[in-house]
């Protein structure tokens, strides 16, 4: 059988259209067979381009508030209290000024400033060093700027801990569900709505991703009586941007170029802890 060029192109064209249409119809049928359940879109989630936090140290009126903030986070996220600094797991913790802002301290600083506990947490950097080094992409940067850790993928290599200049990451050297020498569990009271971690993975603050997606602010912000402010860095009308635009703020180790997104108002008025030893 012979066929001229025109006929050949006609047949080729028709069979292409039929072929494409055919597969589309097939996949459509398969999809509907699998998607038996109805989906209710999540409309509650708070949205941002880059979440950020301002910590106003002047607004912490007592050490109790800081403890309350830390406990609120560690309680809802099942963060174990191992009880020794080597195996310690921390999502949000305190450090002295000299340790939080190395190189900025000097020996003539006020005693208050020198000993005041500064609240530290993961900075959710714009250029996170931990994300660059993770060999399994267990840790990654979300579209809203949160540096997230996928525990399912973490192999516990601890590259991220070596990379993070802020000490924001902790490794589970012990089984977080275990017990100490006296038989007390490391997790005092399990929050049944949140998983624990397992031995051999790295964990850190997630900016309460599970709360943000339910329309709630992070737990620490809620507990802090206004000392912690959370918002979108990309939105010029956000509370965070208003503070950054009107008050002098500092970040931890900005010279390293990771662009941390937790800002500090150092303040110093109205709050003085007198260490017991002095």
């Amino acid at each position, binding site marked *: 059988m012979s066929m001229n060029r025109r006929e050949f192109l006609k047949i080729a064209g028709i069979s292409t259209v039929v072929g494409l249409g055919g597969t589309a119809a097939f996949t459509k049928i398969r999809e509907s067979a699998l998607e038996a359940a109805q989906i209710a879109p999540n409309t509650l989630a708070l949205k941002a381009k880059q979440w950020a936090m301002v910590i106003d140290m002047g607004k912490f009126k007592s050490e109790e508030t800081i403890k309350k903030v830390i406990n609120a986070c560690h309680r809802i996220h099942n963060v174990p209290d191992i009880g020794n600094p080597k195996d310690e797991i921390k999502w949000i913790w305190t450090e002295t000024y000299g340790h939080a802002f190395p190189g900025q301290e000097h020996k003539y600083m006020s005693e208050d400033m020198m000993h005041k506990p500064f609240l530290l947490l993961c900075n959710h950097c714009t250029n996170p060093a931990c994300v660059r080094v993770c060999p399994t992409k267990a840790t990654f940067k979300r579209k809203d700027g949160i540096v997230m850790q996928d525990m399912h993928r973490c192999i516990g290599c601890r590259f991220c801990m070596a990379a993070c200049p802020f000490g924001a990451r902790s490794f589970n050297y012990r089984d977080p569900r275990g017990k100490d020498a006296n038989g007390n569990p490391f997790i005092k009271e399990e929050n*049944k*709505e949140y998983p624990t971690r*397992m031995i051999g993975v790295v964990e850190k603050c997630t900016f309460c991703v599970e709360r943000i997606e339910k329309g709630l602010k992070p737990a620490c912000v809620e507990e802090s009586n206004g000392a912690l402010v959370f918002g979108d860095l990309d939105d010029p009308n956000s509370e965070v941007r208003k503070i950054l635009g009107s008050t002098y703020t500092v970040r931890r180790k900005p010279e390293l170029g990771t662009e941390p997104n937790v800002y500090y108002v150092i303040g110093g008025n109205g709050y003085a802890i007198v260490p017991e030893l002095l």
Partner: protein
Amino acid sequence: MKIYDGGKIFIGLVIFVALFASPFYLNMGKAIAKPELKFDTPEIQRLEKETGKKQCVEPKEFMRGGHMQMLNNWRDEVVRMGNRDQIVIAGQKFDKSLQLACMKCHSNKKDFCDKCHNYMAVNPYCWTCHIQPKEKQS
């Protein structure tokens, strides 16, 4: 053809075959009962009373063979893509979550998850992190 030590070799072979096949003929006719899953936790019974039927996010046949892929997809959607759309079952909304959805109905891990997993000799490590609910029976 002459086989040196033929007698010994054949006796050895017979013993070897007998030992090797022993699991087969010792267990012949004794089929291990298929795992019977229980779908009668208080939560499922309540769902049945309210809606008139027992219903999961997908049909039983799909869930039986495909729940692991589905959980995997849920994990990717929720953790990696931040898509926390909910699934509606009989007017009730559920998160895409093992701990916060599946186990809210199937609060009988021993009679549900473990039965099949033990039968199939698979050992998923969901529960090293996800907290299993308090065991409930009907």
